[in-house]
């Protein structure tokens, strides 16, 4: 198998930037991986169409979402593209504000986006316009929260949907892996384990 080629990745990223110069940011290269930010979230579909059709990124390996709690815009969605012919990767990022919380779907370009977008909707609450079947995928229909958001407590919240499912708070007892949303840096926000505090 041919290894991913950083040179190809770079030149393809440059080609995409040239083709959509007013839609994407500068290329950020880190360890041979190129990332571009799509500046206008309503143009996600257009940029992805160019990447797929003219630059042959025919495979969408992943779509993920990030919650930059406390920042504006709050959310970020990351598309990982790959080309079966040129074996190069490309990462596209787009920021989404909390108010609208909606992005154009790319399911018409890559069918694999279907479940990825459903998962993002389920866990993060970002909606995808044009998605053929935007339902929750892990939690059940009717569950009222989006559990991967940073302001959702790890222990969960009590809910009750008769005949379907209920949830309750898990007893965390202030134990390890408790996150505090909105703190400045990661080590404050997500300490490996809370410091042990003797009782007296």
């Amino acid at each position, binding site marked *: 198998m041919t290894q991913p080629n950083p040179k190809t990745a770079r030149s393809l990223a440059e080609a995409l930037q040239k083709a959509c110069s007013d839609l994407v940011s500068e290329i950020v290269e880190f360890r041979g991986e190129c990332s571009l930010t799509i500046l206008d979230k309503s143009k996600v579909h257009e940029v992805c169409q160019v990447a797929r059709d003219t630059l042959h990124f025919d495979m969408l390996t992943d779509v993920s979402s990030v919650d930059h709690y406390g920042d504006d815009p709050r959310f970020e969605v990351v598309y990982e593209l790959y080309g079966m012919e040129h074996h190069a990767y490309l990462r596209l990022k787009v920021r989404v504000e909390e108010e609208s919380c909606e992005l154009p779907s790319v399911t018409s370009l890559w069918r694999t986006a279907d479940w990825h977008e459903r998962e993002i909707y389920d866990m993060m609450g970002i909606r995808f316009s044009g998605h053929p079947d935007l339902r929750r995928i*892990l*939690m*059940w229909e009717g569950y009222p929260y989006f*559990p991967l958001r940073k302001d*959702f*407590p*790890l*222990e*969960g*919240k*009590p809910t*009750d949907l008769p*005949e*379907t*499912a*209920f*949830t*309750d708070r*898990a*007893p*965390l007892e202030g*134990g390890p*892996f408790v996150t505090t949303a909105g703190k400045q840096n990661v080590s404050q926000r997500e300490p490996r384990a809370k410091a042990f505090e003797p009782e007296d």
Partner: protein
Amino acid sequence: MTSSQTEVGYNTKIEGDVIVTKVDAVLNWFRKNSLWPMPMGLACCAIELMAAGSSRFDIARFGAEVMRFSPRQSDLMIVAGTVTYKMALAVRRIYDQMAEPKWVIAMGACASTGGMYRSYAVLQGVDRIIPVNVYVAGCPPRPEALLDALMKLQNNVVSKQPLFQGGILNNHKRPQPDAMAGQRVS
């Protein structure tokens, strides 16, 4: 008989081919040696449950090898694995469909307490929705531990279970459906 203890026993020389016992005792003895498990395999613990059922550990030695995938044919639910909230009411429904008398083994940390999943998605112990007779520690418990739990349950079946009183041992209180919304049943 002159001994101070009244012996319920059997002496072929005196009594011939007759056994004196109580109906309770004999029915429980039947039950004990032919528990039909409902394998509620929900996560990694189910692998150990399969090991307990196959040749090396051979749960058939204890009469519990007839794993039934229909709740109506089984009387021992072995909850092996992580019970998520999404699955919880399905587990409860399957338990409700099992005919009395019936028993439950919570196999492993997850089924007993939620295990390492202190999380919004996981039921913190299957005893919040169904009564549990024996808890097995471990993550996962070895098949021997499950066999030990089965033997403990068998001892309970013969010694404690009165006839026609449901399958619940030790006067264990059954949770009512309205107590199911996440409350621990004492």
